[in-house]
């Protein structure tokens, strides 16, 4: 039986790789239309970031928030909630974190940094929790509510960094850049390599991934959440308070996205800027799916997506294609992964594919 499971995993991996290749081939057509050589483009995209310290460190800078968001997404999807609200949750998390970092009485970093993370977690949890509460107790579709709450969060965030929380200096000098004051240097996340932006956020994210893994698979709370996600009727039958666990799932999902906000303000920007969420709330969903909705699987998945983002940036400069082509290719990759899931999860598909392969190789 162990051998069978290995076969299954090889099949799953094969299907994912195959669909990725198909996506890249379609993407190649887009490059040709845009007048670029697809082979050079892909070569730059996948290898350029790995050729110097700058590329590698940048990869991890992107991977850290992606991983944190993906952890939250894994929890919520496993609990049967499709949380599309990562963006909003990151922003509200960032607001809460900024509030503590800028306005709370200044204390030693060993107190302040955890406090800022807790505040960001609470902010994200609040934002996720609204959607979770509406889903559990009012039966409001969570896809709709989370997407809509993204817009609300963006407007509140922009209002705050352009208004009440705007940098006093910007106002004084009249330059008017919409950003908050800088966070005291003492609270910044440690730089791991001198001269590069890479910070300890990735380490925090990996520790969180391990904690989430233990939480989901080794505690009774995780057991209940997975049960609610897999079969709500059987969960009720087993005496689980399904409404509370739906809410809890969204509190945690939002909380982890909020932590991604904290990582961005403390590790990268050191202040609140516009579009600080940078699409991580959406890419995090893909990272979570790519990692098989497993917290440990999300670790390599986040690094791969970090590579994709950095690589896409470099490719854009190297082969001179419009940024939109890059976005289209990222979209294609997402579609490929999601559709390869059909082949992996649908019963009977595997047998069909294996049969087809046998026929093609003439062994059938």
């Amino acid at each position, binding site marked *: 039986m162990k051998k*069978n499971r290995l076969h299954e995993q090889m099949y799953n991996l094969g299907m994912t790789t195959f669909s990725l290749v198909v996506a890249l081939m379609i993407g190649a057509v887009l490059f040709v239309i845009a007048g670029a050589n697809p082979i050079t483009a892909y070569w730059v995209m996948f290898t350029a970031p790995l050729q110097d310290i700058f590329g590698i460190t940048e990869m991890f800078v992107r991977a850290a928030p992606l991983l944190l968001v993906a952890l939250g997404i894994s929890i919520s999807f496993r609990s049967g909630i499709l949380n599309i609200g990562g963006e909003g949750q990151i922003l509200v998390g960032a607001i809460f974190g900024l509030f503590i970092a800028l306005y709370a009485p200044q204390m030693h970093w060993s107190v302040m940094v955890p406090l800022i993370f807790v505040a960001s977690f609470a902010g994200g949890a609040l934002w996720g929790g609204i959607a979770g509460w509406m889903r559990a107790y009012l039966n409001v579709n969570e896809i709709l509510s989370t997407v809509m709450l993204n817009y609300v969060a963006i407007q509140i965030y922009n209002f705050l960094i352009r208004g009440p929380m705007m940098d006093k200096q910007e106002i004084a000098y009249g330059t008017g850049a919409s950003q908050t004051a800088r966070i005291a240097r003492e609270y910044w996340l440690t730089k791991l390599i001198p001269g590069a932006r890479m910070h300890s956020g990735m380490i925090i994210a990996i520790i969180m991934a391990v904690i989430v893994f233990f939480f989901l698979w080794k505690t*009774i*709370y995780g057991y209940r959440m*997975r*049960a609610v996600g*897999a079969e709500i009727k059987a969960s009720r*039958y*087993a005496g689980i308070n399904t409404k509370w666990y739906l809410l809890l799932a969204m509190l945690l999902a939002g909380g982890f996205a909020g932590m991604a906000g904290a990582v961005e303000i403390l590790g990268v920007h050191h202040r609140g800027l516009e579009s600080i969420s940078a699409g991580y709330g959406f890419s995090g969903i893909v990272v979570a799916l790519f990692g098989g909705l497993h917290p440990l699987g999300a670790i390599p998945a986040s690094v791969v997506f970090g590579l994709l983002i950095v690589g896409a940036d470099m490719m854009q400069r190297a082969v001179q294609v419009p940024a939109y082509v890059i976005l289209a290719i990222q979209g294609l990759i997402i579609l490929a992964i999601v559709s390869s899931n059909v082949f992996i999860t649908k019963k009977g598909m595997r047998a069909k594919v294996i049969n087809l392969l046998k026929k093609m190789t003439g062994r059938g």
Partner: protein
Amino acid sequence: MAKQIERIEFKDITKRFPGVLACDKINLQVNRGEILALLGENGAGKTTLMNVLYGLYQPDEGEILINGENICIDTPQKAGELGIGMVHQHFMLVPNLTVKENVALCMFNNSAIKLDLDLVTETIKEISASHNIKIDPDAYIWELSVGEQQRVELIKALSLGANLLILDEPTAVLTPQETDKLILLLQEMAASGCSIIFISHKLNEVKAVSHHVAVLRNGRMVYNGSTDDHTTDELATLMAGRDIALPVAKEKMVSEEIILNIQNVTALGDRGTEALDGLSLSLSKGEILGIAGVSGNGQSELAEIINGLRKVQSGKVVLDGEDITNRTPQQIIDRRIGYIPADRLHEGTVAAFSVKENMILKDYAQAPLSRATFLMDKTISNYAEGLVAKFDIKTPDIDTTCASLSGGNIQKVIVAREINRNPKVLVAVYPTRGLDMGAAEFVHSELLAARDNNEAVLLISEELEELMNLSDRIAVIYEGKILKVIPAKEAQKSELGLLMAGVQNEKE
């Protein structure tokens, strides 16, 4: 219209799946106007064989001959053109369309644009007249009972010109009365020239309806001949490959001590109408109380109010002297009421969870399975291994998901979990529906063992035989009320049947 099928033959049909020989050189023949019963336990290869005939699978070896001609059936559409129709166990009907619209769905219209519903209505009327199948073409599917929906499926198949009908376990969802009606209908259809293949593992029906019987076991044909040559017991032995006898309750002194008392309970159904209407019932220690009734008369609601899964509007549920009305499901689990629900795949188990995880579905929060909120993996594995061995559950290992087990083994997982909790009261709803004889035998003997262990069992079933074999008393439920409670040894099928239809015998 398809040509009349005078004779259909299977020659050496073999079908392999990875690791399984599903059909091994099957030879079979059906003539016009004949009813063939295909018998076999779950996984014996009945459905595979029929899917080969219906064009869903291709045989690896062998051929199918229609009227002596070698035919290749590669799609269900081709099968339809040849005059082969299939009625699946789970109906393929759209609930919010009418009967005629459902029939039109599968017909190939002459015009690509215009939907000629009048023509469809004509066809339906013709067919219902010639086969004596009563149905209103304008009724919506959701308004129809299960038995009526099955008739729509039959009409659908016939309107496509089918003259060989395959029925996959057609009686699994029917009440005894509906089953009798169906058997009569099938006999009439056969008399008017249809050939019928009837898949079942219910021996009484097979005896009643078929001319010929073919018994499959592990993909092999073990008997093929006239139905009259064997008694039901002999057929059961052929099917299982061993002597099999469903256990029957032995007389036992039922204690007078009442453990569960339901007093004048009312509760709403899913559609907001009153499903339980002043129902009262009491259950003593060490007895099996059977609940007989046509489904939809409040059975599932009754099970749900006992288990805290449905709100009681008025009245009381008392367990062992304690009022447990409207307690949460968890509180009721803690008071040791066991529940084997009707929906074993979605309610009794979390299908995507492993056997191991399903075994602890109700006790995961208790020591030693978990300590200080942490699940104790080793203890849980040992616990699950123990149950798998004790209840002889056929699973590759305890990490296999429940969804990939057979129906009988999923039910064994549920029964093992519930019985092992030593419940004070065990509520079992349709516990053997869709199970083969071997698995049913297992469930029955476990229920009897629970009774002999002085536990109280509330057995809700539609199969009178099951109720009469196992119960100490039988209560008949009708429109949310208990019409009458009869000691099982005095119960008669005819009387129960009338009560189930709501007819009270006035002379007593």
